[in-house]
């Protein structure tokens, strides 16, 4: 049996029943990584010894017929923006190349308690700033469906590792689409939870009012399983909400009869790939076939979301990234004359071009004389974008859109024009500004064989419904069972 092809729930069931040893599972994934990593370049760091060590512990528990934790022996990949105690956490940046966190992020503590194993840390756009993973200081991750295309970003390493069966599932982070868009480009399930649903303690901060951690998985059931483990209030993150966490897996009933699916008229934009558009229409027909009802809705401020985002996110980033000063951790320039000179050179040598661009834009937007015109203006438009969703959700239970206007693009295609790169996030960015959850599910392929992503957006803290819709869709289709030929 090719264990690496299995989903989290399939592996979990085999391990819990004692039919497969966790050591065999981990070793099978390590062999797979060994075969694929040269082509895919998904990982910044691999942690095979720790993974095998924990797997042996679970194997012994299995032999003694002891009760195993729920995800015992399930191997996962973790985006390199999530702090892992004793394991380098680089954010794919020179400035954190040698940083080894002395503590675990809350999501890591929860995954460890559930018995999940970490295979390694995945590549990403530097500090999660980008939509193609090309902004990594270390390597270019390739899309498993077409090695000439980007995997999307910024969680490109996590998405590619899942799609290429190099892990059973992965964690990513999403500030403007960084889980959902690579999920769409790589043809997997990928969920950005409601802002506040998952603790951000130990997530290296990019834009604190937008960032969320979420799962990237081979099917929707797996996303439900991982969300259940990582969600919930955390006293170490006062922005994590004290809202009960339902049993998401139990909520996957397959029943969406009478559910109102909102279709926003504003998401039919110039520049939309016709193959994406027709796949989305077909997916809506599938949902109707399952008993859902189409409802036209309006999100009138959609056209302003990208502009709003690039002020809010960069302003917060410029403040969050002030901490990289070469003093307490991270890179320090080897030559400097005095303290200020050390800061300026450290940051010049440590940050890549996109990070510098965003620090500059954010600092400008917050600077004296421009604060009201740019930053405050953006905060006000954010209110309008959020109200759009509140109004739309009075008429529907979920909203469906394409995840991205196009399928995965080629390397280098958008690197010279930052604005074009930003616009590739046009359908996901509003969700972060409004704080609502969104889920990508694969809804077909282009003629050239690239995955197309359907986004299901939900009401705040109603991940249960978007998971149920996406799962029902998966049950009615077979796209999620397709695998790239590698």
């Amino acid at each position, binding site marked *: 049996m090719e264990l690496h092809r299995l989903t989290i729930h399939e592996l979990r069931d085999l391990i819990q029943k004692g039919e497969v040893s966790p050591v065999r599972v981990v070793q099978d994934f390590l062999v797979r990584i060994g075969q694929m990593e040269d082509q895919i370049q998904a990982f910044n760091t691999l942690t095979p010894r720790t993974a095998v060590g924990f797997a042996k512990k679970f194997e012994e528990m299995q032999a003694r017929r002891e009760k195993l934790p729920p995800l015992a022996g399930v191997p996962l990949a973790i985006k390199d923006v999530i702090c892992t105690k004793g394991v380098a956490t680089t954010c794919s940046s020179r400035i954190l190349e040698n940083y080894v966190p002395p503590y675990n992020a809350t999501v890591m503590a929860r995954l460890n308690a559930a018995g999940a194993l970490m295979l390694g840390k995945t590549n990403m756009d530097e500090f999660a700033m980008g939509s193609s993973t090309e902004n990594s200081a270390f390597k270019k991750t390739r899309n498993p469906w077409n090695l000439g295309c980007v995997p999307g970003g910024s969680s490109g390493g996590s998405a590619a590792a899942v799609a290429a069966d190099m892990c059973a599932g992965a964690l990513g982070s999403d500030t403007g689409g960084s889980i959902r868009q690579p999920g769409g480009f790589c043809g997997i399930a990928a969920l950005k939870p409601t802002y506040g649903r998952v603790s951000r303690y130990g997530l290296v901060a990019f834009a604190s009012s937008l960032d969320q951690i979420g799962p990237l998985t081979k099917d929707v059931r797996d996303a439900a399983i991982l969300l259940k483990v990582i969600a919930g209030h955390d006293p170490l993150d006062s922005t994590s909400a004290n809202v009960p966490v339902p049993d998401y897996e139990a909520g996957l009933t397959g029943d969406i009869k009478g559910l109102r699916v909102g279709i926003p008229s504003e998401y039919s934009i110039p520049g939309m790939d016709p193959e994406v558009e027709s796949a989305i229409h077909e997916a809506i027909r599938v949902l109707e076939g399952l008993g859902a009802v189409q409802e036209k809705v309006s999100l009138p401020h959609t056209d302003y979301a990208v*502009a*709003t985002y690039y002020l809010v996110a960069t302003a917060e980033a410029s403040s969050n990234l002030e901490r990289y000063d070469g003093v307490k951790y991270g890179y320090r320039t080897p030559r400097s004359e005095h303290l200020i000179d050390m800061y300026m*050179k450290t940051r010049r040598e440590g940050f890549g071009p996109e990070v510098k661009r965003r620090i500059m834009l954010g600092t400008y937007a917050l*600077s004296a004389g421009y604060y009201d015109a740019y930053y405050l203006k953006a905060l006000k438009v954010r209110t*309008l974008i959020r109200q759009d969703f509140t109004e739309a959700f009075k008429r529907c239970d979920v909203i469906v859109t394409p995840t991205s206007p196009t399928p995965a693009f080629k390397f280098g295609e958008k690197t010279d024009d930052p604005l074009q790169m930003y616009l590739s996030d046009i359908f996901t960015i509003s969700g972060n500004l409004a704080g609502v959850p969104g889920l990508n599910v694969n809804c077909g392929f282009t003629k050239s064989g690239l995955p197309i992503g359907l986004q299901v957006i939900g009401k705040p803290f109603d991940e249960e419904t978007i998971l149920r819709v996406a799962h029902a869709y998966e049950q009615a289709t077979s796209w999620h069972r397709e695998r790239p030929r590698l």
Partner: protein
Amino acid sequence: MAKITRKEVEHVARLARLELTEEEKERMTAQLDSILGYIDKLNELNTSQVEPTTTVIPMVSVMREDAVRPSLKQEEALANAPDRQDVFFRVPRIIEG
């Protein structure tokens, strides 16, 4: 008219403690100008009656017991320091001259 001048780029870079090469200043001015030009579309909207949103969740002060709890050990906190002396982070001299 240009949205941002090269002089402003130099000023902002100083505020951000970011040294830029001449070439970077040139490129940054052009790119920021184009991005700010795009962002200008926000001015199509009248927001005089709109409250700003800084966060989507209700922000309340979170209180906890004032109790001693374990925290990072000194050695752990210093372990990633680029330069240190004894139990201190060491930095280049601050006062010129």
